């Protein structure tokens, strides 16, 4: 039956059903609800470490605790609904959610990725939000992988890459929601396990956030029809990918964005009329999970009649209808008085809707078909499965010494880094996503006359408010120390946000890990989660939503452990947003922050095929003082352009500013950079955290330096005319120059 329920839980079920056999509908529903994908057993369960201590719930002990202790008034709803919600302006709130859709994308890249986008959009609709922006972060195997290297059942990275990108573009573009932020990462460790993160941001009037299903309200199922596509999506997602995964293609849903577009219109009209008492999307587990969760949330029960569900195929078995994950469906609870109007709105928007059930006091979920009861379960039983215990082995990172000769020509190294697949321009992908639709995109993913890579995007969601939403991400899977990897991802998401002027930053976590049954995976997961608590707290950025995707295993082994942190900040006036393109000749160029010899996991060492040295560490206090001062300088209009230092360090960041600019270049002197580094190449390519490169007007320099006094910063050069491109004096005073055209050619590939 493809239940994917453990033996232990099977025994527990046997006890529960002691005097009758369960029906197939019941068993299937239990399997979906208790799956790792839906219930997050590992994050909610116990973890026993190798020193014998027990952590009760990673989620509560670390991630939610940080949010609780930070106790921000502007957090409206965290970790309890389809999406996290924070306060915005003029009575509005911003909702955000990020999901993964890895397994489906590995099997059917186009449909898998497209339905990933569709699903996360419905998460926003599921909190009554109007979707205003999409994000996507994608990790693939190297595109030049040879076919001979691929075991059976693993599709070629290029096939997956093309399909995923087309899928994401088609859904977002068709829905008319701009795709504004993201990243693409290539690494061998993703060849068997593609990673597809899809995020959505929405806006809603605060008082429209209604989740108050009452007894006797009707359950209205609206949107696409229910079919055999997407059967067992969640149980499939909670298992390892094997050679036979191809046979599970039917677990991947079929995308139809036009249906969701109409659905969105109808939902927003129903919201604006305050006509429904509750809403949730149909995602993992389909109708079974949506109906159960909605009833359970309001301490009610629900009776559902499967014969009322519109079907794609007439001969579907009741259990198939009940758990199908067909796309573009939402479930609403509607008071009797409003039912007629709600159905009318659906009809006006060409959306099929059907009253499939009614909420009652029972506390049970009952499913009928042809007047027979085919499922009758206690909701408290259903939502309290036996706890899972995992074992964690503390990871140890063996120390290593970096062993590379100092290159003579730094210019050559910069060019090589700029053309590295993980750094070079993603323009050919970004332009296939509409990032301008809705006319609200202020800072674009590619900004400046010459379209350089922005640190974060800025959206202006309300016509009558200058306030903007700032969207950024931090992802750093190459750092080999899981604790500092997580810390760096959080700090990077914040840093990127601040670089354009974002503040009051909320963050979202998305873990993609290998099987939790492997103690090493649990060991690294535990470290990463510890860092999430430590740095969310220390950097004053609460988590508002998150999701974990475990069991990312393929015939090629575990996925590279990847944590995506999405940052959602605000900027009081979008006209003050700072971009990375250079503005005026002769302006001063500063570096803020301290550069240390922290190259382990860096783009530079990876390029050299080496490992060693120290991983970048974060001094939270310093980081907060730097970002706080930078915001101050931005608000005083002192900062004319700004870019964060991340992959490829100072060398790549300075080059990217030149790339974004038509007629100006940068001249810098490494001897002036605040640092503890004695080699020019290490200084130029170190990936120490909490650093920015900033352009400041001559007149503003004094005030700027005043703001940063006491912090590590230095004027390292100036903006020059474009004849120079990028000019770098190294620690010995030798000057390395790159022309504008060679920089652009290396980065763009043309």
């Amino acid at each position: 039956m493809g239940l994917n329920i453990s033996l232990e839980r099977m025994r527990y079920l046997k006890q529960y059903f002691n005097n009758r056999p369960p029906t197939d509908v019941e068993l299937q529903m239990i399997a979906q609800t208790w799956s790792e994908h839906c219930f997050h057993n590992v994050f909610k369960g116990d973890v026993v470490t190798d020193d014998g201590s027990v952590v009760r719930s990673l989620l509560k002990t670390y991630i939610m605790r940080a949010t609780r202790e930070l106790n921000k008034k502007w957090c409206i709803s965290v970790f309890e609904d389809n999406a996290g919600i924070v306060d915005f302006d003029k009575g509005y709130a911003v909702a955000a959610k990020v999901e993964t859709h890895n397994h489906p994308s590995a099997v059917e890249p186009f449909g898998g990725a497209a339905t990933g986008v569709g699903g996360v959009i419905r998460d926003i609709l599921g909190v009554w939000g109007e979707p205003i922006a999409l994000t996507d972060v994608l990790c693939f195997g190297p595109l030049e992988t040879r076919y001979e290297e691929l075991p059976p059942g693993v599709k070629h990275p290029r096939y997956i890459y093309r399909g995923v990108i087309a899928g994401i573009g088609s859904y977002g573009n068709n829905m008319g929601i701009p795709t504004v932020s993201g990243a693409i990462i290539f690494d061998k460790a993703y060849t068997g396990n593609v990673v597809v993160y899809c995020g959505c941001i929405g806006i809603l009037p605060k008082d429209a956030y209604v989740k108050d299903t009452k007894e006797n309200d009707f359950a209205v199922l609206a949107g696409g029809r229910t079919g055999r596509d997407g059967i067992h999506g969640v149980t499939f997602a909670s298992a390892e990918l094997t050679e036979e995964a191809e046979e599970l293609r039917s677990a991947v849903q079929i995308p139809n964005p036009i249906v969701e577009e109409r659905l969105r219109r109808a939902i927003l009209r129903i919201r604006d009329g305050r006509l429904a008492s509750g809403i949730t999307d149909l995602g993992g587990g389909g109708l079974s999970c949506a109906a159960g969760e909605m009833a359970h949330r309001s301490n009610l029960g629900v009776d559902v009649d499967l014969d009322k569900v519109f079907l794609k195929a007439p001969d579907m078995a009741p259990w198939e209808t009940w758990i199908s994950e067909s796309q573009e469906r939402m479930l609403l609870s509607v008071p009797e008085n409003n039912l007629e109007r709600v159905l009318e709105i659906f009809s006006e928007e060409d959306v099929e809707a059907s009253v499939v059930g009614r909420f009652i006091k029972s506390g049970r979920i009952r499913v009928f078909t042809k007047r027979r009861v085919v499922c009758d379960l206690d909701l408290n039983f259903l939502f309290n499965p036996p706890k899972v215990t995992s074992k964690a082995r503390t990871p140890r990172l063996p120390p290593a010494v970096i062993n590379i000769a100092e290159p003579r020509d730094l210019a050559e190294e910069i060019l090589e880094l700029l053309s590295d697949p993980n750094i070079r321009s993603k323009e050919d992908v970004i332009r296939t996503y509409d990032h301008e639709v809705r006319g609200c995109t202020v800072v674009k993913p590619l900004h400046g006359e010459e379209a350089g890579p922005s640190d974060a995007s800025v959206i202006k969601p309300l016509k009558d408010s200058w306030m903007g939403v700032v969207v950024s991400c931090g992802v750093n899977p190459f750092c080999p120390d899981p604790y500092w990897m997580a810390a760096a991802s959080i700090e990077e998401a914040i840093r990127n946000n601040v670089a354009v002027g974002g503040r009051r930053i909320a963050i979202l976590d998305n873990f993609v890990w290998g099987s939790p049954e492997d103690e090493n995976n649990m060991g690294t997961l535990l470290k990463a989660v510890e860092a999430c608590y430590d740095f969310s707290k220390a950097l004053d950025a609460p988590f508002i939503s998150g999701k974990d995707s475990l069991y990312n295993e393929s015939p090629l082994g575990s996925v590279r452990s990847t944590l995506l942190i999405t940052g959602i900040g605000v900027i009081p006036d979008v006209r003050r947003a700072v971009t990375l393109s250079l503005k005026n000749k002769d302006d001063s160029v500063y570096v803020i922050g301290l550069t240390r010899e922290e190259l382990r996991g860096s783009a530079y060492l990876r390029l050299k095929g080496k490992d060693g040295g120290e991983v970048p560490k974060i001094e939270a206090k310093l980081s907060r003082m730097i970002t706080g001062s930078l915001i101050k300088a931005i608000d005083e209009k002192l900062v004319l352009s700004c870019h964060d230092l991340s992959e490829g360090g100072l060398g790549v960041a300075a080059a990217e500013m030149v790339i974004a600019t038509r007629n100006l270049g940068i001249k810098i002197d490494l001897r002036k950079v605040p640092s503890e580094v004695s080699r020019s190449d290490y200084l130029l390519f170190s990936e120490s955290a909490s650093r920015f490169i900033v352009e400041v007007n001559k007149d503003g320099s004094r005030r700027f330096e005043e703001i940063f006094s006491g912090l590590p910063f230095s004027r390292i050069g100036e903006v020059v005319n474009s004849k120079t491109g990028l000019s770098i004096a190294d620690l010995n005073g030798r000057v390395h120059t790159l022309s504008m055209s060679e920089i652009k050619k290396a980065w763009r590939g043309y």
Partner: protein
Amino acid sequence: MDPGKARACVLRTGGTNCDLETQIALEELGVRTEIVHMNQLEKKRLSDYQLIVFPGGFSYGDYVRAGAVWGKSVLAKLRLELEKFIEEEKLILGICNGFQVLAEAGILPGDGVSETPSIALANNSSAKYECRWVWIRVENNETPFTMTMKRGEVLRIPIGHAEGRFLTRSEEALEELKRNRQIVFRYVLPNGDDANGLYPYNPNGSTHDIAGICSKKGNVMGMMPHPERAFFGWQLPEWGESPPEKGDGRKVFESIVNRLKHL
């Protein structure tokens, strides 16, 4: 007519998605603008409006061909009303998917409805969706949509489409467009010189770099670029130290308002 009394109708159907920002642009200039779903038209009359906009989006998912299904449904439902509307020299603007609809319905380049369209908007030469800012040059400033612009003026404006390659049925059809001065906008280099098909300045491979055309009388215009996305200065992709107040796309709407005064 006082533009405050003029009424505009932004039509939509399932898959339309640029209606709201188009409405915002028109209302910003004082035109009362309603977004009307095709399903609501039984209760509304097109004759109540002076301007109809077919906005951008993916009507009917762009299945078959971009704009094909909506184009046919417009004809089936609204043909007579639209013909009258056009004859009265009221204004119709098609943006992006709206342009595709006008082409598929045979409303452009003719002055009424043509059974055999002589133009098409085919798949981009790059064979993919393209979202980018381009430069377009005003070729004809004597239309209601360009009357506040100078001839030869260059506008900075974004496009976002997969099917925008303007084609004519024949060389002769192109010559006719030229002869009738129906070519309104052409893609150009940043300095205003002809793009001559050069990618990405001509982003889709359009014949003769054509970005927008009008009917012979000029009261119907279709354009692939999105003026509503270049309406405010803060929408521009680069603004130095702070954004200007206005974007170039506003000029299209300002021209419309100017014309509505004389209707």
